[in-house]
C-alpha cells in the first residue's frame, strides 16, 4: 500500500522496474497491436474470439488517440524526442499529448524543468517545434 502512495509520475517516481522499462507511445502500441491482430486473422477465421476485452479496448483507444499514423513518422517522432536527455516516460507523455507551448509541456511533464537537462525554455521550445513539424509533413 505504501508503495502506491509514494508513486507520483509528476516527479518520475514510478518504481525502478518501470523507469528502466521501455515506454510505448500510443502510436507505437497501435502498430504493435495491428500486427498482432493481423497474425490472428491469418491463423483463424474469427480473430475477435481470440482477443480479450483488454486487447480490444486498448486497440480502440490507441487508434483513437494516436497523433501519428504511419510507421516512418512514428520512428521520426521517437528520434526527435530522443535527441534530448529525456526519461522514457517523459518522452512518451510528450509524444502522446504533443504540447504546443513550453508552458503546456511543463504542465504535462513537470520533471523536464528539473534536473537541468534543458539549458533554457528555448531548448524546450525547439523540441516542441521539431515535433509539430513532423505532424505538418505527415
Amino acid at each position, binding site marked *: 500500500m505504501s508503495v502506491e502512495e509514494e508513486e507520483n*509520475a*509528476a516527479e518520475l517516481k514510478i518504481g525502478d522496474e518501470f523507469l528502466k*522499462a521501455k515506454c*510505448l507511445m500510443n502510436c507505437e*502500441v497501435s502498430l504493435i*497491436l495491428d500486427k498482432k491482430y493481423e497474425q490472428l486473422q491469418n491463423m483463424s477465421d474469427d480473430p475477435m474470439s481470440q482477443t480479450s476485452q*483488454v486487447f480490444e479496448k486498448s486497440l480502440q483507444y*490507441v487508434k483513437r488517440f494516436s497523433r501519428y499514423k504511419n510507421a516512418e513518422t512514428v520512428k521520426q517522432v521517437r528520434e526527435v524526442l530522443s535527441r534530448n536527455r529525456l526519461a522514457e516516460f517523459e518522452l512518451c507523455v510528450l509524444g502522446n499529448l504533443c504540447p504546443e507551448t513550453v508552458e503546456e509541456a511543463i504542465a504535462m511533464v513537470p520533471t523536464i524543468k528539473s534536473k537541468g537537462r534543458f539549458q533554457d525554455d528555448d531548448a524546450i521550445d525547439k523540441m516542441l517545434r521539431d515535433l509539430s513539424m513532423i505532424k505538418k509533413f505527415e
Partner: protein
Amino acid sequence: MFFHMVLERNMQLHPRYFGPHLHEKLTSKLVKDVEGTCGGKHGFVVAVTKVESIGKGLIREGTGFVTFPVKYQCVVFRPFRGEVLEAVVTLVNKMGFFAEAGPVNIFVSNHLIPDDMEFQSGDIPNYTTSDGSVKIQKDSEVRLKIIGVRVDAAEIFCIGTIKDDFLGVINDPDAAS
C-alpha cells in the same frame, strides 16, 4: 502509460503434451492465461509479443505435471498517479463523469471539474460552461490528470481531475471546420 516489459511465469503442463509441439502448447497456454489479465504490479497485460525463453522443466512430485519457467515480452498498461493522459467520457451524472483510457476506468468527481462548468441533466447529461462554449458529454475526449490509483484483485481503478491548467475537453483543430 503503455510499457513493453519482460515478465516471467511458471507454467504447468500435463505429460500428454510432451511431444514435438511442447513449446507451441506452452506458448498458447501462456497467451490464454495471461493476456487480458490485470495484476497489481504490472497493470493490464494487453498482448504477449514474444516468448523469450522456456527454461528446463521441473517434474512436480506426486502429480507428474511439469513446471516450466517461461520468460516473455508483452505490452502492459499501467496508470500512474500524477500521469496526464487522454480519455473518452463514458458516463456523465451529477457526481461527476466516468472516462475510459484503454482498459482502465477513471472517475472525475464534480469537485475536480472547473467551477464554471455546471451539470445539465436531460437526454444527454453533460457539464457545460455558462456561455455554452465548452461541453463534456458521453463520447467527449478529455485530457485529465490521474490523482489516485487503486488496485483491486483483478482491476485497476483511477480517480482524476480536469481542474488544472491545460486539462479538459480536447479541441481537435483538425476536426474544427
